[in-house]
């Protein structure tokens, strides 16, 4: 009996140790990045690195002064909100239709689209958008980012729609409700929380997406993520400003992901795992 209690204590102790080690390994680089962004410029590159310093906002001021950070941020916001809205506009009816008709191949097709490398889409888009002179337009960016948001919306909403009992729809049909009205008045209110989660996940993934904006944007429409290169170029001497940029870029997705933590896995795996 005593033996078993001892083993238990050992296991609990090991568990705690493991959690602490994993936590430190995971958190330390991020903490380091945030700390560096508040360091006075001469201390950021100090060697050996310093942990104690008087925090300053000088890097953030420097960042907004030397780079068009705010207009990049606005570009990111426009593209992300636009592509999320587009993803919802088409994704909600699509998910409902797949759930309603049980014809699943269109949903699987969007999954296949997510498995293909982004460059595969980017090449034809580039050729097309160049021919109609739309390189660098918000439209091109929003359309391309919808490829990211659409599968997320569909696959996050599909289980929610599936979970609504058929009898609810049948009752509505008996009362003479058309299918589009069922979606609008009955199904959508029932999956409202699912829609919110899918919108947030779509926003996060669209915000984080790098590849498309790298090619399809120009100086005026560059998103924050695609502008990361500019910051690195400037940051070769200005680590403080670079880390300030990194912190600010990571902030919106981190906050939003924390909000939907519970559903994060379903968004990331697109229905591959039932959690």
């Amino acid at each position, binding site marked *: 009996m005593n033996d078993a209690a001892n083993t238990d204590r050992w296991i609990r102790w090991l568990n705690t140790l493991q959690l602490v080690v994993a936590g430190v390994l995971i958190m330390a680089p991020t903490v380091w990045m945030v700390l560096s962004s508040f360091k006075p410029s001469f201390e950021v590159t100090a060697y050996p690195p310093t942990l104690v310093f008087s925090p300053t906002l000088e890097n953030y001021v420097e960042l907004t002064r030397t780079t068009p950070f705010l207009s990049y941020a606005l570009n990111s916001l426009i593209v992300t909100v636009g592509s999320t809205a587009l993803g919802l506009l088409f994704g909600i009816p699509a998910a409902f239709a797949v759930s309603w008709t049980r014809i699943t191949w269109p949903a699987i097709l969007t999954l296949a689209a997510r498995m*293909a*490398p*982004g460059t*595969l889409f980017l090449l034809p888009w580039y050729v097309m958008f160049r021919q109609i002179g739309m390189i660098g337009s918000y439209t091109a960016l929003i359309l391309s980012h919808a490829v990211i948001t659409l599968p997320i919306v569909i696959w996050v909403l599909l289980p929610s729609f599936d979970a609504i009992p058929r009898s609810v729809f049948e009752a509505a049909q008996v009362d003479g409700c058309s299918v589009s009205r069922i979606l609008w008045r009955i199904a959508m209110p029932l999956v409202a929380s699912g829609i919110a989660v899918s919108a947030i996940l779509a926003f996060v993934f669209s915000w984080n997406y790098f590849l498309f904006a790298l090619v399809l944007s120009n100086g005026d429409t560059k998103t924050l993520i695609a502008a*990361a290169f500019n910051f690195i170029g400037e940051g070769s001497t200005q680590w403080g400003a*670079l*880390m300030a940029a990194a912190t600010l870029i990571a902030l919106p997705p981190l906050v939003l992901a924390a909000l939907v933590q519970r559903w994060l896995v379903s968004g990331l795996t697109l229905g591959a*795992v039932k959690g």
Partner: protein
Amino acid sequence: MMPPVVAGMMWLVILDPSLGAANYILQSLGLPPSDWLASPTWVIPTVALIDSWQWTPYVALIVLGGLQSLPPSVYEAAQIDGASPFKTFQRITLPLLLPTIVTAAILRSVDLLRFFDIIYITTQGGPGNASNTLNIYGFRVGFEFFNIGYASALMLTLTAIVFGAVLAFNRLRGAVAW
């Protein structure tokens, strides 16, 4: 959910060969410093390290989801049979969890066969060609050398490889399913 690009920026600074915090820690432990991303030998392990750092929590979340859905009755049965915690893990948890682990492996491989963001932000495939992946190469052929046709062929091949890997993994998942 930190953007991979930000992870790249962050590690770029931490792993800086001369002033980075990583080399300082190595040196204070009495280990030789590394060139990390600037070394042709170490660049692949280094980007792998950055990616693992970013996505290990995600794999843990998937596995946690799998753990929570395991039936408690098997564990009660094992306890009655007097199985040790280690044996329980080895003979019950691991086999029951294998499908989940394979799923996580599928998702990660699909992402990693197309590994782009972190490599492109940190090295663009360099030094030399040391960290060039098919995806990076295809991107550069298409948008730096503007050989769209060759780049498309490369990307279709990569897509075929990804689908092949998914099919193979799916077979594996079928084999370990319970």
